[in-house]
């Protein structure tokens, strides 16, 4: 089996976890100790090319890049300048506020070029580099879609947190913003269409509005990219037409609130979520940390509990903090706000705490190494 490398971003630094057998793990870090590592990820085209979003309320946004799998790092450009008319979006109180860059939430490397990376930022916009991070330019068609005044921040800020590249149609990009919703581009990011039909959000004056939905995370399987799964603020949703329409698949979940959602590496209808009690109670129902798995593409969910704390557990699992590996059987990993990273080497049937005492986990990514 190939070795597995986990890239874990936390509130106080980045950690690199490696294992040859997915049973014993070594932990390297913290990298950038004391800084928030919002997201750390690797290029599918070159696993040694890593990118990290390093942020601080004090010192702002720093971007890091490694060319040797995380042994050494160097800063790259942190210039994320909106293009053209900046415009305004809705603030919490309903007033309008100008767009202002705050931080990079998510990095999505190109499937085939290690120098090309998309960045989802707060206030919500999509940026791209084609020179390995030395310069970033906005794809302004998204922010200038025209619905911007109706976008509003979720509790964590108005962030663009999900970027899905379609492996079968190179010009299709699907993104999600909290709280605007899903947008899809069929022309490599020049123009965008809201893709929120079927979503229902009670926090909106019009719960079925075209935009304004607090989408927490999207996931897709590369073999059927027209099927999208969504963890929304409330509701777990599914689209079978690339986001044109959505229907609910929450089924028998104990709560349909949550943040991450992931798809099994080899079974496109096997989906994972971590139910959280409510939007004001960001911890698992009944104090039991349970991953739920559906092998039917939703609606019928099975609790996965072996190895996870089943009493007095009040951690959260954030939207970018769950990942699956490509091994067989598929591995599943997630990190908690309590600083635990749990891993399963059997598709979620059982779990072990592979890093039990890290700072609060913000993101988890996984790489297979040759």
């Amino acid at each position, binding site marked *: 089996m190939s070795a597995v490398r986990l890239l874990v971003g936390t509130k106080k630094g980045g950690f690199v976890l490696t294992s040859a057998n997915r049973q014993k793990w070594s932990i390297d870090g913290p990298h950038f100790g004391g800084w928030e590592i919002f997201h750390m990820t690797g290029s599918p085209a070159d696993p040694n090319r890593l990118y990290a979003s390093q942020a601080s*309320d*004090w*010192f*702002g946004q720093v971007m890091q890049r490694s060319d040797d799998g995380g042994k050494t790092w160097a800063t790259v450009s*942190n210039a994320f*300048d909106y293009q053209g008319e900046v415009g305004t979006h809705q603030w919490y109180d309903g007033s309008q506020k100008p767009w202002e860059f705050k931080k990079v939430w998510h990095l999505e490397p190109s499937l085939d070029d290690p120098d090309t990376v998309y960045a989802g930022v707060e206030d919500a916009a999509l940026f791209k580099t084609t020179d390995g991070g030395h310069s970033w330019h906005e794809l302004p068609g998204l922010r200038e879609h025209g619905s911007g005044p109706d976008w509003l921040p979720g509790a964590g800020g108005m962030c663009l947190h999900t970027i899905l590249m379609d492996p079968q149609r190179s010009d299709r990009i699907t993104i999600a913003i909290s709280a605007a919703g899903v947008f899809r581009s069929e022309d490599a990011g020049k123009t965008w269409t809201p893709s929120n039909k079927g979503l229902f959000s009670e926090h909106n004056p019009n719960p079925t509005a075209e935009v304004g939905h607090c989408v927490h995370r999207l996931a897709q399987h590369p073999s059927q990219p027209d099927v999208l799964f969504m963890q929304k603020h409330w509701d777990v949703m599914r689209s079978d037409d690339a986001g044109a329409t959505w229907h609910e698949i929450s089924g028998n979940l104990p709560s349909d609130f949550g943040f991450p959602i992931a798809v099994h590496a080899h079974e496109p209808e096997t989906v994972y979520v971590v139910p959280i009690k409510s939007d004001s109670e960001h911890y698992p129902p009944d104090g039991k940390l349970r991953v739920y798995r559906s092998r039917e593409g939703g609606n019928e969910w099975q609790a996965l509990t072996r190895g996870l704390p089943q009493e007095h557990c009040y951690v959260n699992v954030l939207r970018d903090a769950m990942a699956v590996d490509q091994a067989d059987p598929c591995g599943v990993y997630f990190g908690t706000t309590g600083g635990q990273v749990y891993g399963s080497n059997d598709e979620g049937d059982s779990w072990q705490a592979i890093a039990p005492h890290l700072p609060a986990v913000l993101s988890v990514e996984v790489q297979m190494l040759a």
Partner: protein
Amino acid sequence: MINVMLPVPLRRLAGIDEAAVALEVEAPITQRRVLDALEDRYPMLIGTTRDRSSKRRRAYVRFFACGEDFSDADPDDALPTAVANGDEPYLIVGALSGG
């Protein structure tokens, strides 16, 4: 030479071992010129003490010198002679925020 003291996170980011860095800055010695010189020497610090474009001080960063708070001073005002002479450092401080 102007001695600039940096907070630990920025020293680590810039790979600076010492608490202070000595910078050659052309007179008149102002905050803007000191910060420009710092960013010229250490480009990884661009954007960490002030906004990249507007040059507005970041909200949680403070600037002190000779026992005075220069955080909200005009960046083009001259700094004290003791700073310009290198007798006193120019301090970049992360604001106290936490428990």
